[in-house]
């Protein structure tokens, strides 16, 4: 257990260090939002209508950025072998890597989301529902991403392949996340059930990602 916590602490530290990816992800998130806003145009009403979809899409795209290095960096410098030799089961390692990805990618985005909402003219009632959907929905992004990264890390163009693998699997979280955020903003009774579906997507990822990713790690490291 202490070995797993040591890996988590190291990965979070490396993530926030210079060149670790956390800062780039945040900048990319804002860049995407600004580009979307420019494309939609200056009309405040139409911006307001697309605020939640844009925020969710930008968060999803930002999550892709650091996925390919999740295992690959450790694989290339040899620390993955060292870690694997000390990890009781590979599924747990996938969970730890997903947690590190969430803490260095999703958590900063959630903190920054209100500012991004301001840029998109998100209505005042929309902030809490949006934050709730991001907090409950982003774990699925990190978990699915870590599971896919565990399958692809030895490949040269792992980043592209991971994105292609993961993109379709992100769809349920995106759909229910945006639906819940929009329903919550207008007090629609659909808010609660869609939020529960979003949680279900995250819980499903919590079960399947370690299984698939653990098998991938075992195969790739043997």
């Amino acid at each position, binding site marked *: 257990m202490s070995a797993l916590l040591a890996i988590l602490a*190291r990965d979070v530290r*490396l993530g926030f260090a210079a060149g670790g990816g956390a800062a780039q992800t945040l900048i990319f998130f804002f860049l995407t939002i600004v580009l979307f806003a420019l494309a939609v145009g200056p009309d405040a009403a139409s911006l307001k209508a697309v605020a939640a979809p844009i925020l969710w899409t930008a968060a999803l795209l930002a999550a892709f950025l650091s996925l390919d290095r999740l295992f690959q960096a450790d694989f290339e410098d*040899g620390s993955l*072998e*060292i870690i694997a030799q000390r990890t009781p089961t590979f599924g747990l390692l996938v969970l730890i890597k997903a947690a590190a990805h969430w803490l260095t990618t999703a958590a900063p985005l959630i903190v920054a989301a209100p500012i991004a909402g301001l840029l998109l003219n998100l209505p005042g009632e929309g902030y809490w529902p949006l934050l709730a959907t991001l907090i409950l929905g982003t774990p699925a992004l990190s978990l699915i991403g870590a599971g896919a990264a565990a399958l692809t890390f030895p490949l040269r163009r792992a980043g592209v392949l991971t994105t292609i693998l993961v993109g379709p699997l992100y769809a349920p979280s995106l759909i229910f996340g945006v639906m819940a955020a929009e329903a919550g903003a207008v007090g629609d009774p659909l808010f609660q059930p869609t939020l529960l579906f979003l949680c279900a997507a995250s819980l499903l990822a919590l079960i399947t990602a370690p299984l698939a990713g653990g098998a991938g790690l075992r195969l790739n490291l043997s």
Partner: protein
Amino acid sequence: MPQGHLPKGEAKRPQSAYQSSGLSPTPPPTGEPATYGVYLTVKGLSAGRGGGRAFAGVDLAMAPGEAVILRGANGAGKTTLLRAIAGLTPPTEGAADLSDKDGAPLSPADTAAFAGHLDGLKPTLTARDNARFWARLYGRADADKAISAAFSALDIERLTDRPSGALSAGQRRRLGLCRVLIADRPLWLLDEPTASMDAASAKTVVGLIEAHSAKGGSALIATHDAINIKGARTVTMGATSMGAPA
């Protein structure tokens, strides 16, 4: 009971329950380093990576305090053998088992420190921070003491606060080997430990292996370098018991 030199290929201890099948589970790691006095029994081991077979039918027995130098041409399967013993590469046939003097199975995670040909260093972290991570990974309670002892043993104290990305190849290798000292495991599995080291550093490493053996630890060292370890046995892969690729 310890029985000194075991004849190669034959272990005279009771077989563990885990030994029967090649894909049998090893006992789960306890998180605690195993105590010294570990027996290694490799029986009829075949393993390969990436679908191919690296070696077949390898037998090897090691008692506590023994050092074995593993030689063999490139591609003879030295690295794969070390990885199989470390529990990283599953055997396709046979088994590599670790046990204590009573024959109770031990997990490779608690028993073996594996040092591959990569050093596992994070270039942005200082030498000390890399070492601190290892100390936590291997569950060392007295991390700072273990780190300073390992750094002084490998003569890299003055590099403590340097980012490991700024070190030379030989310095990185020495820092990488620190991990084995910090891990404090009874069995060392070293893959080309003296690669890119100068003669003096290589001599230091040999001294450390001899000290480890004197403490009752064992070491299996795959190397092409002409290193001379006191009392070490040499095993050549691809020559005697090692079968041809099937």
